[in-house]
């Protein structure tokens, strides 16, 4: 790691960096199969995705599942709620990098910067109003091992106004970040300018 970079010591909505701990493929090493797996051509510049390209099929299907879980606009939970679930899971697992990215999305889509900052600063027990409290509680319960998600979480989400597809969206978003956090944490470190 470069001398000019340090590890962030707090959760933040600011842009932070990420440095791989295993060697990514170089751009010159990327074959058409790797480029197909990256989905977005711009990701060839990104060391995280060039590292994951070592298993192209796993990367490709991870990325396409991710996009549908978060971006599919057909009903269900609004994007802000899905990004909130991603942020809450990242806060619980301790992925400062993932939390920074999805806290920015949650704050932008919901226009609730102060609430997102409270989640980052105080943790998953922060009071964000009942709808968001229900989503955070469900996400945290699903993140526990053994899994602690139960009927009371579903009933609370319904009472907060989420329909069945919306609850499934929260479940899939929270579950997906238990995948994403582990890749991001295990394969490299978050960085900020020293």
């Amino acid at each position: 790691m470069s001398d000019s970079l340090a590890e962030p010591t707090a959760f933040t909505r600011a842009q932070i960096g990420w440095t791989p701990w295993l060697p990514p493929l170089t751009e010159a090493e990327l074959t058409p199969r790797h480029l197909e797996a990256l989905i977005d051509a711009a990701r060839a510049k990104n060391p995280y995705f060039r590292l994951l390209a070592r298993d192209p099929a796993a990367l490709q299907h991870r990325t396409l599942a991710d996009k549908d879980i978060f971006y599919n606009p057909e009903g269900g939970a609004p994007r802000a709620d899905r990004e909130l679930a991603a942020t809450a899971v990242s806060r619980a697992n301790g992925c400062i990098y993932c939390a920074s990215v999805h806290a920015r999305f949650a704050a932008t889509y919901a226009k609730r910067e102060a609430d997102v900052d409270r989640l980052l600063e105080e943790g998953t027990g922060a009071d964000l109003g009942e709808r968001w409290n229900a989503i955070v509680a469900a996400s945290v319960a699903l993140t526990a091992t053994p899994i602690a998600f139960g009927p009371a979480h579903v009933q609370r989400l319904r009472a907060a106004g989420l329909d069945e597809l919306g609850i499934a969206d929260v479940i899939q978003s929270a579950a997906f970040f238990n995948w994403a956090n582990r890749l991001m944490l295990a394969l490299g470190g978050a960085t900020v300018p020293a």
Partner: protein
Amino acid sequence: MTDTIDRLAGIAPGSALEKIRAGRPAARDHAEASHRALLSPDAPGDVSLAERFAVARFVAGLHGAPEAVALYAAGLAQHGGAALAEAVAQAAAATAATGPRGAFPPGPLSAEDSPAPGFALPPAVAALLGAKLATAFAYAHFLVFHPRDAAPERFAPLQAAGWTPDGLVTLSQLVAFLAFQIRVAAGLRVLATTP
């Protein structure tokens, strides 16, 4: 058509939950394609099918997820044999813990630190697994229960046991994917059965 998450969650054809999953068709298809890529790849490369199912059975056991344990135990018995399957079952039982735990970078978050669970395989189990799987299980145990304790030094014992960079990416994807698959199934099972 029923897929792996349907089977793990107990979602029946024609049920309300099947229709809800159909509302996110790409998520459904690519979760299943991820399962195939990691558990039954066209070319296993640096990680054998026996190793993949051994890790999957171990991770399912650490999650206390009975449907996933049954699924991956059957695959392990097929690809790795009964003696390996028994050793993996003993490894999971001997190292059960709770998460997420671990230490944050030293600073204001240190007040939230919680000690990492221990990891010690019974010597006879470690001997039967061999160094490649034993180091993979230590890594999977960390990644399941205390992923914020990640560090570049964690790869050294795996590399010494023969894990390549490609193999380490596949191993990381497998453990992380299972953390997703088991949670989607658990969550949808609760959703389907809560009146």
